[in-house]
């Protein structure tokens, strides 16, 4: 059985390797499954209940996917959670319980992020001046997105790159100055942050009737959806507004799809048309399944998205999301979250019950 050190090394190697075939991915995934089965006890229980053991799991597709909600209920970790270098938590939920993802080392998360970001966002550019619309890692130590943006800024941002959120407030004035400055100098500029912060920015610009034309080569990266933190915009409207107010072509507006429960991000190649095709690097594979049977649905049919992320070396590799998608050429389309079911009549479904009995519990 592999030790943690060996598993980390093997994972790093796999991420660094530029040529990996389907078979290589399979071998790595099975090896990782054995490791999780051995050391992640709740996951082992979960798998044996489903009759899945290292003996019966023959390909990466057989690995039992864990629903993201499980990260709230049990500790899914191969290492002692106390020993973890970082714990990333999901944003609060209706019940205030947050899912936790333990990373014994951030080395893998960082490598996964950097290699992927370089390829999908930076392209041939080494450095770009950045504005970050998100709190710093110090302000949000349990946010994997804060870590991600910090890495982006440190690794790929120029010296003058800076944050424009302080105490959870958007520094609109500072940002407008920065954008005017970019217009004047002609230096390409990148704005990165949470989708809802962009909505706040757009609202401010609309109010002040301000538009910008950022220099050629400028880019935008938004992520995470609106999370009820801002008004919900239709994707098409959102990117149209970004392009109108900031003068960045929609093909340079990249959306990053990431989750606390993953260690790897997925990207599109711009949002000229929406929904845009998303895809990830060689160490993550995505399937679209029927949630009831777990079977893959036919290409082009709607289903629920399952990711197998080999950079998830300490928790579980395979995650059942709550996102609906469709597999297409070159990746998948994200069609949004599944809306909760409304009970059709007077019967009561779980979510509503919890909402109703909140405050009753003593």
């Amino acid at each position: 059985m592999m030790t943690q050190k060996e598993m980390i090394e093997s994972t790093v190697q796999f991420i660094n390797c530029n040529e990996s075939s389907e078979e290589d991915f399979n071998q790595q995934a099975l090896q990782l499954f054995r490791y999780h089965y051995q050391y992640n006890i709740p996951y082992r229980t979960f798998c044996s209940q489903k009759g899945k053991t290292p003996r019966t799991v023959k390909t990466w597709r057989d690995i039992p996917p864990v629903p993201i909600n499980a990260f709230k209920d049990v500790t899914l970790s191969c290492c002692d959670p106390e020993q973890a270098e970082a714990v990333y938590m999901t944003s609060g939920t209706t019940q205030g319980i947050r899912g936790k993802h333990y990373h014994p080392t951030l080395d893998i998360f960082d490598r996964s992020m950097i290699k992927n970001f370089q390829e999908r966002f930076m392209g041939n550019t080494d450095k770009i001046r950045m504005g970050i619309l998100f709190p710093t890692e110090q302000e949000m130590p349990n946010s994997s997105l804060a870590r991600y943006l910090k890495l982006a800024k440190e690794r790929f941002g120029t010296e003058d790159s800076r944050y424009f959120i302080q105490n959870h407030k958007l520094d609109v004035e500072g940002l407008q100055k920065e954008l005017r400055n970019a217009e004047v100098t002609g230096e390409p500029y990148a704005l990165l942050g949470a989708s809802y912060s962009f909505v706040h920015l757009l609202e401010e610009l609309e109010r002040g009737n301000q538009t910008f034309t950022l220099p050629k080569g400028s880019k935008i990266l938004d992520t995470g959806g609106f999370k009820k933190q801002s008004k919900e915009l239709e994707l098409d409207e959102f990117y149209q507004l970004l392009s109108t107010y900031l003068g960045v072509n929609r093909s340079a507006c990249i959306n990053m799809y990431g989750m606390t429960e993953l260690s790897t991000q997925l990207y599109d190649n711009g949002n000229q048309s929406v929904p845009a095709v998303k895809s990830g690097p060689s160490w993550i594979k995505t399937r679209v399944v029927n949630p009831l049977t777990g079977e893959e649905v036919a290409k082009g049919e709607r289903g629920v998205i399952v990711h197998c992320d080999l950079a998830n070396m300490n928790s579980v590799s395979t995650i059942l999301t709550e996102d609906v998608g469709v597999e297409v050429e070159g990746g998948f389309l994200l069609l949004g979250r599944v809306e909760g079911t409304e009970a059709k009549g007077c019967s009561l479904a779980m979510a509503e019950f919890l909402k109703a009995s909140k405050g009753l519990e003593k």
Partner: protein
Amino acid sequence: MREIAGYIPNIGEESFETKVLLFERNQETIEVEIPILTHEQMSRLIDKIKHSSRKVLKSFSVNELMNIIDEAIHRLLERDSSYRQKAEKVLPIVTGYDEEMIRLGLTSYLKTFRKHELQRFLVEDLGNPLLLDDFQPRVKGGFSKAFSPDLITHIWSGNVPGLPLWSFISSLLVKAGNIGKVSSAEPLFAGWFAKLLVEIEPRLADCFAVLWWKGGEEERERFIFQQTDIVVGYGGNEAMEALRSRIPITKRFLPFGHKLSFGIVSKTSLDSLKALQAAHLAALDVMRYDQQGCYSPHVFYVQKGGNVSPKEFARYIGHELEAFNRRFPRRKLSMAESMEMAAWKNKEEMNLFSNPNNEVLGNNQNDWTVVFEDSDLSLTPSSLNRVVKVKEFDHIEEVTKGLLMHRDYLQTVGIAASPSELFQWSHLLGSVGVTRMTALGNMTSPEAGWHHDGRFNVLDLINMVDIEASAEQLSEELAPYAD
């Protein structure tokens, strides 16, 4: 196939704006066209119904009305009548429920509204049904008559086919005019029933309407409720809250919001023979309408100490659900329902880690799920669609203790217990908010005249008008023949 839903009396209009709803099941599709009235049409409709309610409907005797309803029900019960055939063909496509389940469910449900059951409804609530026709002498002295409103508006839900009949028929019995808003999940049955009534008794043509508008159209609802005497609403609590906010304080609102039901099995029914039967009945309650009813069970509390243990009983139920699934396959679930169900089951499977004595049973297709739980007796809703928990207990008090906090949500309990347990347990369950005890296997078929959520079928729809004894005595003195 295209079907016109709803029923609109003659208000001098030939054409209405319509909305088309599309339903699909097993490659069969049906388009349901449903009229939507303009404000002005709605206004005329309300006037018409109120007028006919006063002039026509109230001139019928309650016995005549019972005969008309009885006739309509019998036509729906006859397998070869055109209405029945349409219902059997169309409802499975619209609701997604299995044909056979619909057929059996309809029959058992419709039987509740035959004449002798209708009499039961009335006697149950009024004692003397003639109160609806004329002033009747009272035991206390004096006379009373039950006066009904001119207009009752019903906001129906679509979780169980035919459900609107409860309130529709109750209102007809008390001679009230009706406007029913159907749900887009099942927009047809109430309209068929209305048409059938008019076929049988054309004089009723302008006494009711069945139509649709988008739930939550505030202006429209305010306008209608302003002119309605009573609003009966079925649906989620949020929807009920919204309705309530639009109903003037002078009007009566009868909301039937969210409810939660469960079963309870005594060790007396857990010997080797009886347990099989009990599991069959429990599974039947779970299978019927895929638990979409307020009377559908979410949990079965099973007593320890019988020959068959609660854990074994859970397996029995699983076996029965598997058998039922072959005969009455579950309807096709939406993506959201599928995910919710998968998530629910996954969560239970994860819980096995901290509760190794629990058991999660199901098949690969996730057609049903039974979870056995040995330590937690709380009442929790299942994700529906044939998903149920079995929890073991020693003493009834362990079960009732945790129920009090859910008082507002409790409704039906399916019981399998000895006579002395039945009464003792019912007493305890009633005191924490349960309003209906029924036999296991019977949860989804309430008997005629049941007290829905503890209330009355017709009593809440009428006003009692009294002639006090003093008025009668005084009148005697004023008679032309007084000595």
